[in-house]
C-alpha cells in the first residue's frame, strides 16, 4: 500500500475541512467590519460561536499530519513561512479569545469586535500569503530551508492573500444567509451579489499570473488537463449561480452556501493537484519526505478509526444548532 500517498490525501482532507469550515468562520469574522449595527454583529457571531473551536481543530490536524507523516517537509516549510505563520497564529489567537471576551463585556464589546474582525481578516491574508509562497516555490539545500523568511513576500502574494480572503467571504456570506434572519439575512443577501464574482475574478487573475511566474505549474496542469478543466468549470458555474440566485427569495437559503462549498472544494482540489507529487513545492516529493511505514501506519490506523467518529459527533454538534440563529442568542 502506498502509505505516503494515503497520508498526503488525509492531510489534504484535513486541510480542506479546515478551509471550508474555518473559512466561513473567518469570512463571517472579516465581514463584521462591514456591519455597523451591534445587534446584527451579535447575531453574526452567534452564528459561528458554537462550532468555531472544532473548525479550527482541523488546522491542527493538518499541521500535525505534516509533522508525523512528512517531518522533513514540516521542518522546511515552517521556517520558510515563518512570518505569515506567526501572523496567522497571533491573529487566530486574538480572534479566538474575542469570542469569549466580547461575550463578557458590554462597554468594550465594540473594541473586541474590531479585534475579532481584524484577527479574522489578518489570519485569512496570512494564509493567502502562504499559498502565494508555495506557488513561488521554496529554496532548499539538502534537508534544510535555505532561503530567508522574507522570500515568501512578493507582489504576487498580495494577490493570493486577497483571493483567499474573498473565498472566505464567499463562504461567510453563504453561511450568514443560511443562519441569519431579517437584518442579518438581508446583509448576507446584499453581499452575496458581488463577493463570489470578486472571488472568481481574483482567482482567474491569480491563475494567469501563476502560469507565467511558475512554469512548473503549466506542466502539472497539462498532465491533469481534464481534472483542471472540470474544477475551473465547476468553480465558475458555482460563482455565477450564487450571484444570479442571490436576489431570489424563492430559492432555499442553503443553496448559496452549498455552491460556495463547491467553489472551495474545486479550488482546493486544483491547488492540491498543482503541487502533486511534491510536498515541498517543486523540490521534494511526498515519498522522499515521508516517515517510515511504522509511523505512517500508526497514524493512519488512528485516522481511519477516529475520523468517522469525529465526523459523526461533529455532525451532531452542528445538528444541535441547526436552523436559524435565535434572535436572543444561544443562551
Amino acid at each position: 500500500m502506498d502509505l505516503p500517498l494515503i497520508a498526503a490525501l488525509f492531510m489534504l482532507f484535513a486541510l480542506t475541512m479546515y478551509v471550508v469550515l474555518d473559512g466561513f468562520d473567518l469570512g463571517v469574522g472579516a465581514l463584521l467590519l462591514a456591519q455597523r449595527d451591534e445587534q446584527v454583529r451579535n447575531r453574526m457571531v452567534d452564528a459561528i460561536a458554537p462550532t468555531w473551536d472544532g473548525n479550527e481543530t482541523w488546522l491542527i490536524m493538518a499541521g500535525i499530519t505534516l509533522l508525523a507523516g512528512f517531518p522533513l517537509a514540516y521542518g522546511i516549510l515552517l521556517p520558510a513561512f515563518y512570518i505569515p505563520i506567526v501572523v496567522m497564529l497571533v491573529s487566530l489567537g486574538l480572534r479566538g479569545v474575542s469570542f469569549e471576551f466580547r461575550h463578557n463585556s458590554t462597554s468594550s464589546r465594540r473594541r473586541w469586535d474590531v479585534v475579532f474582525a481584524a484577527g479574522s481578516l489578518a489570519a485569512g491574508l496570512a494564509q493567502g500569503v502562504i499559498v502565494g509562497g508555495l506557488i513561488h516555490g521554496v529554496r532548499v539545500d539538502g534537508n534544510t530551508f535555505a532561503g530567508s523568511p522574507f522570500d515568501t513576500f512578493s507582489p504576487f502574494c498580495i494577490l493570493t492573500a486577497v483571493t483567499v480572503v474573498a473565498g472566505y467571504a464567499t463562504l461567510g456570506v453563504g453561511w450568514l444567509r443560511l443562519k441569519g434572519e431579517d437584518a442579518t439575512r438581508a446583509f448576507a443577501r446584499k453581499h452575496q451579489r458581488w463577493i463570489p464574482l470578486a472571488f472568481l475574478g481574483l482567482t482567474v487573475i491569480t491563475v494567469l499570473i501563476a502560469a507565467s511566474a511558475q512554469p512548473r505549474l503549466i506542466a502539472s496542469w497539462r498532465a491533469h488537463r481534464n481534472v483542471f478543466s472540470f474544477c475551473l468549470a465547476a468553480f465558475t458555474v458555482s460563482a455565477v449561480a450564487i450571484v444570479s440566485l442571490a436576489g431570489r427569495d424563492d430559492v432555499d437559503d442553503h443553496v448559496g452556501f452549498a455552491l460556495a462549498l463547491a467553489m472551495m472544494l474545486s479550488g482546493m482540489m486544483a491547488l492540491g493537484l498543482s503541487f502533486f507529487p511534491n510536498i515541498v513545492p517543486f523540490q521534494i516529493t511526498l515519498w522522499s519526505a515521508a516517515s517510515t511505514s511504522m509511523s505512517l501506519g500508526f497514524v493512519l490506523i488512528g485516522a481511519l478509526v477516529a475520523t468517522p467518529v469525529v465526523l459523526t459527533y461533529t455532525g451532531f454538534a452542528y445538528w444541535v444548532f441547526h436552523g436559524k440563529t435565535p434572535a436572543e442568542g444561544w443562551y
Partner: protein
Amino acid sequence: MSNLDPLILARIQFAFTVSFHIIFPTISIGLALFLAIVEGLQLKTGDPVYRQIYRFWLNIFAMSFAIGVVTGIVMAFEFGLTFSRFSQVAGAVIGPLIAYEVLSSFFLEAGFLGIMLFGEGRVGPKLHFFATCMVALGTVLSASWIMAANSWMQTPDGVAWDHGRLIVTDWHRVIVNPSWPVRLPHMLLAAYLSAAFLVSGVSAWYLLKRRDVGFARRTLSIGMGAACILITLQVFVGDHVGSTMVKYQPAKLTAAEGWWDKTTPSPMPYLWIIVPDQSGQRNLFQMGTPYFGSIWLTKSLTGTMPGLSNIPVSDQPRMLPVFYSFKLMLVIGMTMFTLAVISLWLRWHGRLYSARWFLRILVVMAPSGVVATLGGWYTAEIGRQPWVINGLMRTSEAVSPVPASTLLATLIAFVCAYSVFFLAFLIFTLRLIRRGPEGLPAHALPSGSLKRDLRPEIAGVQPYLAGAK
C-alpha cells in the same frame, strides 16, 4: 542584531509560549472535572445550588478553554517554527502521538464544548451532562498523549537511529516509556489540585465578604474535600516521579536537590537555600534541615547520593533555575498538604466556613496550584537541558534556520498578544467573581426520558435563565 543568539531566542520563545499555554489547560482540565461532578450532583439531587455553581464556573472555564485552544494551536506549529531540526529528527516519533491527541481529544472537546456552553436550551439535561463528561474526558485524553510525547523526550525508548533520524521500533515502548506512567498522574493531579484550590479560594472570598453564602459553602466543601484526597495521592505520586528521576535522569534530580559533591555528606541535610556557582561546581552558600535529606531521598538515616559533578560539565543543566523551581513546587505542595489537614480538623469541629484566618489563607492560595504546576514544568524542562531528547539530541542541534532578528520580532509579537489575553482574562474573571453567581432559580429543571432530552421543545422544557447573559 548579529550579537543575538538564535538558540537563546528560540528557547525563550518556545518557553514563553508553552509556559503561557500550560496555565490554561491546567485550569480547564481541573475545572472540566469539577463541572462534570457538579452537574452530576445536580442531576442526582436536584439541588439548585449545584446549577448556580455550574453556571458560574462554566463562564470562567469557557474563557480559559478558549485561551488554551488558541495558544495550543501555536504549539502545534512552534515545533517547526523554532526547532525545525528537532521536528525533522523526531517528527516520526512525537508527531503520531500528537496526531492521536488531536483525533481522540481535541475533536471530542471541540465537538461537545459548543453543546456544553450554548446547548442548554437545545438539548435536555442528561445529554447536556453527557457533553460535559465528554469534554472532561477529552481533557484527560489530551493530557495522556501530550504527556506521552513529553515523557518520551525525558526518557526516550522504543526508537533507533536511521540515517540521522529517529525511527520507531516499538510503539508500545514509545508511549509507555519509563516516566509516562508516573508523570501523567502527577500532571492530572496537579491540574485537579489547581482547580480545587482555585474554586476554594474564590468561595473563601465570598465567605469572608459574607455574600452568596450557600453557593460559597457548597463550593468550598467540594473544593477542600477534593483537595484532601488529591494532595494525599500527589505525595505518593510525586515521590514516585522522584524515584524515576533517580534512575533515568540523575542530573535533573541532583540539580533539583542542590548537590554538587561526588558523594554527599552522611547524614545528608535537605537543602532549602543555595547559592550555586556553576563554573566552580560548588555552592557558595547552602542551608538545609539536618538528616532530612537522607531520610527523604534515601529512606535511611545516613544515606548519601551522587551530586551533579558526577555528570560531565557539558551535559549538566543549570542548577539555579532547576533547584528553585523545584523548591517552589515542593513548598506549595507541602502548604497544600498542611491546609488539607487543617481543613479536615476545622470541618470536624464545624468551623470550616467560619475560621476567617483559614479562609484568608485560602484566598491567597487560589492561584497556587497553577504556580506549582509551572514550577514543576520548569524543573522538568530546564532539568532536561542541554538535551532536547534526553541523551539523544542536544537543544543546540535542534534550532531552526531562522535569523535572530526575526525570532526577536515574533517573540515581541507573542509577548504583546499574550499579555492582552492574560490581562483580559484576569479582568473578566475578577469581574465575574465580583459580580457573583446568578440568583437561585425559582424551581428545579425537570429531568426526564432521553427522548425528551433530545427534543426539549416537545416537552416544553425551557431554560429558565434564558436571556440571562
